[in-house]
Structures are given as structure tokens and as C-alpha cells.
């Protein structure tokens, strides 16, 4: 501590939270650089000072991986950044990622005690600050690991797989991660755009994992090149963690979906993010986007798609959603950014047909909706307004309606139990599937969810694996 301060409590702290500098909307809608620029040291210090160091903090139980939030914020306030980073890493393998993409407003910041009276502490922004500082200054330390003989296979190198791999590696296990794509990172690479989460950040976090001795085999689709029975048999793995994500894009089944110019958000974002289609033809993969783009859906993926479309030069980027802004499952921050950048929202509209000329999209017929009675999800279900159909002039239609379970693993692993939607059934305590020694977590268990929930599942599974192998975690 530098100098003695007045006791910090709700009456003495700065009431408003520190704003994070951002690229102005007019500029950023034309580039793929990160929107939010991160705190400076001064800004971090100002915000860290707003944390009143509650004796019984409610932010920690609000965090799916239970980060010692007051602890790392205190370290920032004391300018002990290595300690802040260590505290983060103890619970969260990818703090630079989660500091950016976690829905903190629904988690730690929602339960922050300061937030009951004032604006909650900007925990996510502080997390990002500490992690970025550590990455920029090479503070990442490889923990001392006593190697053990047991081998664990992790399928998928997204947030769930990486977290489980790290925890198993820390416990000394020999970890091999199998990744289907040509780079590691999963949805962090192919899904979340550069302007929200730069690939370089993901790569730095993965590099730390490799230093711990984790092996990542890209271009390996388990279920195809090897099966789980092979991994557990001849290949000598004692445990397997399945973290393949969800995957299969949903379409609506309306007329015109086979037209050129219709694609899933997964395809659009993968072409842009993973394949760097925004640099075509310098890189090899075209995107195939026109000038007037409609994205169907209003979740985070829809925000990512519609904002990516603007950056690729779309003259019009619409979001078409059958409910209202209130029901939109997107993070408020993403929604807000999309509005600022000029995405046009057609709330209470539902597509009924995609129109084409000579095989290419030329428009989309929509019908206006009204909110009726609440459905089983508690949201008021939209009902079409008779006679309200109209035509939206677009040449590209992107479906961001969520995903279904990818069947590759389930269909090649005898005895692996799935639920009626094809997601894997697991023991909620250990993440173990119906096959002893085979664990699963993330979207392939829960359906489309968040990065941090997948990481939480990866962590729980690592504990389950250690228990199954008779090792003290």
C-alpha cells in the first residue's frame, strides 16, 4: 500500500465506473481492429479503487469459474500486476479472452455489491487489463509440473478443451489436444471476430499452454481419423474429454434458402475470421457477401455477423428478429455497439421467403409480428400480423439462429448416451458421460452457451478426470 487512504465504502468511492476507451463508431465500422481499447494504468487504478473489498463478496459466486475477484482487483490497486495475473490464472486459463467476451453484466458484475447502489465495478475491464498487461510484459510463468504417466486426450481446442487441458497438464498428466481445424482455438478463432477478440490474443494464451507441455494436434477429427474406442484402447489414453462445441447451423426451412447469397453465420464468420476472407484475394478464401445484408436472429452471433458485414463494406446491414430488443439474447454491450455502428434493426419481423433472380438473392419477404402470450421460455411469443408482408431489398441473407449438435462423435462412439437433441449426457458433478473415463463439456453438452461456461465445464471435467484416475487434484 502506498499511503493510508480513507476507508473505502459505498459513500466514499467514485460513483461512476471508468469508461473504457473505444474506437469511434464511424472509424471502427470500416476496420477489423479491436473496438474496445482497454484501460490505461491510470484508468485501471481508478476503477480498482472502486472495489470496496467486501468481506463476503457476491461477485465471486457470480463467476462461473470462481475467480478471486476482490483479490486480483486489490493487486491491481497495489500495482502488483504479476500477482493480479497469477490470481486470475489460478481460476481462469484465458483471462485475456474472458475479460473481453464474458457477459460480466449477467455474472460477477450483476452480483457486485457496489452495483446495488452505484454502477458496479467494471470487473471484466479490470480482468482484461491485468491479462493484457501480463501478455504484453511476458509475465506468464510456466508452473512447476511434476510429470505423471497418465495420458489424457482432449477433443476440441476451444475454451472448454483448452481449460481442461491446462488443468490436467498442471496436475502432471500427459495431454494431447485433437483439433479438427488447421489452427487451435475453436470458436475463439472461427467464430468471435477480430474486432471483439483479436486472434493474436488467443494465440498468446495458447502459447502459454504449449509451454506447459500440452501437445495440440491440428487437422485431427476424432470420430474420423481415430475413434474414442481407439484412443482409449490401442493409443493408451486413460481418459478423454469431449469439447467439440455445437456446430450444426440451423436454417428456417423457408423457400429460397438454396439461393446464392444465403449462408449461415458460421459460414460467414468462418470465412472472415478463420480464413481471413476480408483480405481476399491476398488470402485464398472469398466471403461472397453482397452490398445489402440481412442477418436473421439477434443473439451475439447475429451482432458479430451484422457488424462484420459493415466492416466488409455492406451499404445496408439489417438485423431481422421476430421479437423485440428486450428479448434479444445478445449482450447489451454488443447490441449497443451494433446500433452505434449503424446496423439497422427490424424488430418484430419474421422472414417468410427469400426471393431470387437467376439463382441469386434479390430480396426477402418478411411479415410483421406482434408479441402474444409468454411461451415456455418465459418470453412472449411473437404472432404474425395478417396482411403485413413486405419485401426487404437485400442480396445476402445470413442465418444466425443458433446451432444443433454435431453428431460426428456420438455416431462413432458406441455406448455414448445423448439426449433427444443429440447433446451428450453427463454427470453434472464430474462431467463424465455414460462411458467411464469419457468426459464431455461445453456446447456439445449444453447447446449454444458462452465461452466461460465451457471453461467452467472444462475445469470441472479435469477434476472429474483426476478423480477417475485416482489422482489428488
Amino acid at each position: 500500500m502506498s499511503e493510508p487512504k480513507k476507508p473505502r465504502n459505498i459513500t466514499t468511492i467514485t460513483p461512476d465506473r471508468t469508461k473504457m476507451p473505444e474506437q469511434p463508431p464511424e472509424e471502427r465500422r470500416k476496420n477489423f481492429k479491436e473496438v474496445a481499447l482497454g484501460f490505461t494504468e491510470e484508468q485501471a487504478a481508478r476503477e480498482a479503487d472502486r472495489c470496496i473489498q467486501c468481506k463476503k463478496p457476491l461477485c465471486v459466486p457470480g463467476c462461473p469459474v470462481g475467480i478471486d475477484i476482490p483479490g486480483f482487483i486489490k493487486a491491481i490497486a497495489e500495482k502488483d500486476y504479476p500477482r493480479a495475473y497469477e490470481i486470475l490464472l489460478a481460476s481462469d486459463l484465458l483471462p485475456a479472452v474472458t475479460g473481453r467476451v464474458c457477459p460480466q453484466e449477467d455474472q460477477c458484475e450483476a452480483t457486485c455489491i457496489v452495483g446495488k447502489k452505484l454502477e458496479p465495478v467494471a470487473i471484466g475491464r479490470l480482468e482484461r487489463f491485468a491479462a493484457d498487461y501480463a501478455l504484453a510484459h511476458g509475465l506468464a510463468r510456466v508452473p512447476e509440473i511434476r510429470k505423471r504417466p497418465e495420458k489424457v486426450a482432449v477433443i476440441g481446442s476451444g475454451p472448454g478443451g483448452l481449460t481442461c487441458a491446462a488443468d490436467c497438464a498442471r496436475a502432471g498428466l500427459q495431454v494431447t489436444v485433437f483439433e479438427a481445424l488447421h489452427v487451435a482455438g475453436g470458436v475463439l478463432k472461427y467464430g468471435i471476430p477480430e474486432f471483439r477478440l483479436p486472434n493474436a490474443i488467443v494465440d498468446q494464451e495458447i502459447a502459454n499452454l504449449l509451454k506447459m507441455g500440452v501437445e495440440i494436434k491440428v487437422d485431427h477429427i476424432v470420430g474420423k481419423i481415430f475413434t474414442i474406442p481407439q484412443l482409449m484402447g490401442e493409443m493408451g489414453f486413460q481418459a478423454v474429454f469431449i469439447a467439440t462445441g455445437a456446430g450444426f447451423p440451423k436454417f428456417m426451412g423457408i423457400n429460397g434458402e438454396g439461393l446464392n447469397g444465403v449462408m449461415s453465420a458460421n459460414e460467414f464468420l468462418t470465412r472472415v475470421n478463420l480464413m481471413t476472407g476480408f483480405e481476399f484475394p491476398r488470402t485464398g478464401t472469398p466471403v461472397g457477401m453482397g452490398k445489402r445484408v440481412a442477418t436473421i436472429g439477434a443473439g451475439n452471433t447475429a451482432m458479430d455477423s451484422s457488424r462484420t458485414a459493415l466492416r466488409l463494406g455492406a451499404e445496408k446491414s439489417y438485423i431481422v428478429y421476430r421479437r423485440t430488443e428486450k428479448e434479444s439474447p445478445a449482450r447489451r454491450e454488443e447490441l449497443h455497439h451494433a446500433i452505434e455502428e449503424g446496423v439497422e434493426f427490424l424488430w418484430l419481423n419474421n422472414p417468410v421467403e427469400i426471393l431470387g433472380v437467376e439463382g441469386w438473392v434479390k430480396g426477402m419477404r418478411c411479415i410483421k409480428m406482434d408479441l402474444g402470450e409468454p411461451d415456455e421460455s418465459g418470453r412472449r411469443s411473437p404472432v404474425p400480423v395478417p396482411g403485413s408482408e413486405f419485401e426487404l431489398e437485400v442480396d445476402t441473407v445470413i442465418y444466425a439462429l443458433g446451432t444443433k449438435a454435431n453428431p460426428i462423435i456420438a455416431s462413432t462412439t458406441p455406448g455414448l448416451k445423448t439426449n433427444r437433441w443429440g447433446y451428450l449426457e453427463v454427470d453434472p458433478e464430474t462431467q463424465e458421460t455414460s462411458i467411464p473415463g469419457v468426459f464431455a463439456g461445453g456446447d456439445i453438452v449444453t447447446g449454444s452457451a458462452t465461452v466461460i461456461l465451457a471453461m467452467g465445464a472444462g475445469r470441472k471435467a479435469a477434476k472429474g478426470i483426476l478423480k477417475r484416475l485416482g489422482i489428488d487434484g
Partner: protein
Amino acid sequence: MYKILKKQVFSPVTYLWELEAPDLARACRPGHFVIVRHKEGGERIPLTIADFDRERGTVTLVIQAVGASTQEMMAFEEGDHLLNLVGPLGIESHIQNYGAVVMVGGGLGVAPVFPQLRALKEAGNRTISIIGFRSKDLIFWEEKFRKYSDELIITTDDGTFGEKGLVIVPLKRLLEERPGGIQMVTAIGPGIMMKACCETTRPFGVKTLVSLNTIMVDGTGMCGSCRVSLGKEVKFVCVDGPDFDGHLVNWDELMRRQNRFRREEAHSIEQCKLNPKGGGA
């Protein structure tokens, strides 16, 4: 990295690679495909496996230089390494003893017919192969086909070798001459050729399988780029195929979708010609 053990040039635009990939060779079955990427920043290209040798641990691909990437890949020589190779993808071909089968390959499509032909022959079928090329100097694998075919018909569009004309001419003749004598037809080649084969067999009611090679990105069902309409159903070629009942495929939509990047591709090839090493600006 996957070493190119053998390269064979069939024509100015067609070449073969035999790649060292023991795990892949062990796992793959007739009908499977792979996705390759030849350089950082390069696109992911799906290619049907043309042959594999489990003992030697090799997989063979036959490639046509039609785009910027496949043109650049043609410069790779024996001993060079391919950056990315992932597979086996798709569902393996259904192999059984049908009785008599006709295996039709058109141009580059001749290559992926081969593993199916061999497997069907080994399953006890009487095999009749029809392989078609534009011209005599584009013919490849005549010997390999002869070895596993009870009858082999070669056609060339210009009549420089074998029968002059399209593969559907001998196909139709066989169906007419042997009513009830052919239980299954497999056709692999360009969309227009597979469509023509399906229209030829349709009136005879002979089951006709095709292997589709659509535009893909991941190849694992994630993106849906490869979707194809079969009657009222939409299927993903990467995970539901690549083999489908050709009589159900919406060919016009399929061929149209294959052209959806033609403007971008043309631009890319232009750039590639201006700057052959870089594949772009």
C-alpha cells in the same frame, strides 16, 4: 506436414499426389474425402480420395488446376510437404454385392471412382467401367481400371481414343442392351455429367449413386456451405454425403451454388497470373 512421395502429371491441368499419411491411410474407406490447404492464408479445398495404400501408409489425390490455389499447388514437387491435410471426411461408400454395376467417371471424376470400383469388385460384383475424357492425351489410370473392371469402355469427346462422345452414350446402350442386368450405377464427375447420367438411368429405374464435391469450409458440418437439396430435404455433403441418390439431387441448384464465387475466383486467378508466386497482390 505431409510429404509428397510421388507426383505424376496427367495433363497441363491434372496431376496426382501420393502423400505420406499413415493414420489417414489406415482410417479411410472408399468414398471418403479430405480437405487440404497448401500455404498460410490458403483456402481449404475438399478432394475425394483417389486411392490409398494402408501398408505403405499413403493416400493418393488427383487434382485439377482450376483455381488459383490448385494452380499454385501444381508447382509442388516430390519431397515437398503439404501444409494441411485433414480427413477422412464424409461417410464411406456403401459397398455390397449388387450383382452387376456400372461405374462411370468423367474427367477428374475418374479418380474417385477407383476406390469404389476396387471395393465393389472385391465384394463380388461384375464391374463395368465407363471412363470419359475430353481427349486422348488426358487419359489416366486405364490400367488400374482394367485390372478391376470386367468390362472397360473409354470415351473421348473428340474421338481421339476409344468411343467418340459422352459417357452417357455407352451408359444408355448398356441399359438398353441388358434390361434388368444392371443393378447399380455410380457416376462421379462434373455436375453436368452426373446430372446427365442420372437422367439417362432414371427411365430404367436403376439406382444411381453420385459423389458430390461441393464448396466447403470446415468439412465437419459446422458451416453448411456444402448444403444440397434432395427432394424436400436439405443435406450437408460433408457429413451426410458425399454419396447420394442421384435421382433425388436438385442438380440445377447444385450447379448454380458451385458457381457462387465465380466473380471472386476470376479476380483471384487474374491476380495469380500477375504474380504467380504470391497467389495474390
